[in-house]
């Protein structure tokens, strides 16, 4: 464990001096928290836009006895709450992208691998260094969103639905599991490419399924609910276990040192 925390400490000391990473860690949470809050604020200031029956059928079912205006606000806020699931993916991927490839470009990988650290310790250290900030920032941002929503939303029923337990599962569990999958893929990519940006771009493909859900919700094809989140959590636990094991196996010290120039 001490070696793992040494790697975490090293990664944080180094990576947060990288302007791009720092910008991503600071700017994105502000933006991603502001957008749903804006929806809450706009929804609160709107006069009643009419009946719930004016909205798509899937929303009518979700809104129940909410007014049309409240239901519209809920619909808009729910779209943007998905951003809280992207946040723990994008931030760690940005950090992890610089991980192995960064060691290679600075020629630090060889002396690092010459220490008595095991491959598992190295990869766990790098994973935690990327995962912890992403998850903490997401939880903090969601906390800020919840507190401000509590102050802005007048209707207790609307507030209860905005802060649905589904989002606690999504942000508290699915987000970190998604982040872990993203980090493992990024570390694998990072150990095989020669440029951090390439690693980041390849790994960012993982955001695509989330974007798909985002747009599917907008057009009313799919409604994210607690069952979907629970299923996603179970599937992600299996995927993560496989990726962690695969990551340790595909991290070939020799290949990385001898084939990468």
């Amino acid at each position, binding site marked *: 464990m001490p070696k793992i925390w040494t790697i975490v400490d090293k990664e944080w000391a180094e990576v947060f001096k*990288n302007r791009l990473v720092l910008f991503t860690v600071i700017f994105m949470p502000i933006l991603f928290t502001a957008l749903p809050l804006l929806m809450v604020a706009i929804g609160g200031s709107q006069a009643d836009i009419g009946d719930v029956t004016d909205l798509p059928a899937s929303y009518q079912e979700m809104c129940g006895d909410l007014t049309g205006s409240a239901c519209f606000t809920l619909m808009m806020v729910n779209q943007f709450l998905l951003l809280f699931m992207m946040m723990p993916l994008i931030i760690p991927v940005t950090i992890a992208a610089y991980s192995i490839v960064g*060691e290679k470009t*600075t020629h630090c990988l060889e*002396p690092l691998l*010459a220490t*008595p650290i095991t491959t598992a310790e190295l990869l766990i250290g790098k994973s935690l260094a990327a995962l912890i900030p992403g998850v903490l920032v997401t939880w903090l941002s969601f906390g800020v969103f919840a507190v401000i929503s509590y102050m802005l939303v007048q209707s207790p029923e609307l507030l209860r639905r905005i802060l649905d337990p589904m989002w606690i599962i999504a942000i508290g569990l699915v987000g970190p599991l998604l982040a872990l999958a993203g980090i493992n893929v990024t570390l694998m990519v990072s150990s095989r490419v020669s440029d951090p940006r390439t690693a980041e771009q390849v790994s960012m493909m993982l955001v695509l399924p989330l974007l798909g859900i985002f747009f599917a919700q907008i057009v009313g094809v799919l409604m994210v609910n607690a069952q979907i989140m629970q299923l996603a959590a179970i599937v992600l636990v299996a995927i993560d276990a496989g990726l962690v094991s695969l990551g340790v196996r595909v991290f070939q010290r020799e290949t990385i040192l*001898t084939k990468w120039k």
Partner: protein
Amino acid sequence: MIHTENLTKKFGDRTAVEALTLDVREGEVFGFLGPNGAGKTTTVRMLTTLIGPTSGTAVVNGFRVGQNDTDIRRCTGILTETPGMYDRLSAEKNLTIFANLYEVADVKGQVEKYLRLLGLWDRRADLVGNFSKGMKQKLAICRALLHEPALVFLDEPTSGLDPEAARLVRDFIEEIKTQGRTIFLCTHNLDEADRLCDRIGVMKQRLITVDTPTNLRQKLYGRKVVFHLRQADDALLARVRALPFIKDAQRVDNKLVLGLDDPETHNPVLVRLLVEAGADIQFVGELRHSLEDVYLSLVGSTDKAD
């Protein structure tokens, strides 16, 4: 300290190191010479367990490569050919990270010790990115020694350094040699190898030879002594040539260049003979071939053989 037996490394069809059988003794500075691509760095990587051998065996400080890799990493230090440092971190932070990874008991004390030893203590809080190449090299040497390894691998330690920094690094290598550590030194700088190494191995995919620098010279060129005279002529040369222990003799202006197996024994005899023959001896010296001559001769001969 190091024992290898037919150690071989292949990358696909290419053989980087072929059947290397080598012994490096405890406490010696062993120079490892060879042209670019000769397999020096590959050998170091195998011995530091960074890469695995294709065949053969290697034992480092009593631990078998491939079986006790973590133990080997604990007791060896390495200065890589391009020793990267974390440029965004301070010198002290860089060393602290590696001291922790090497499980050093007194991290703070060891970091301070080596920063002071190499004159970097006053710059400990500065970012390494602002350091000169020489300072980075010194810091990398600190990193290789933090855990007090019994065996240190130095791959081109003075490459690219200005003469002053190179000298400082060489002096430091001599200092750590006096501490009884074994040093495995890969270098292209033959003058450096000549000055620092107890024995030298010349490598070109396979090991060509291993010996002390003096013996290598003697094996290839024998020993030659030069007598500087006020006046030399062919009659004098003929008298010298007649001596049974003279292997070869030449006159170059007023100098006699004589090939001898044992100058320490035969020089007094020669001095007496020349004085009796009326020669005025101005001074006597041994003609040393540079290690470069030896190296080029050895590497060149394998080129012809290939």
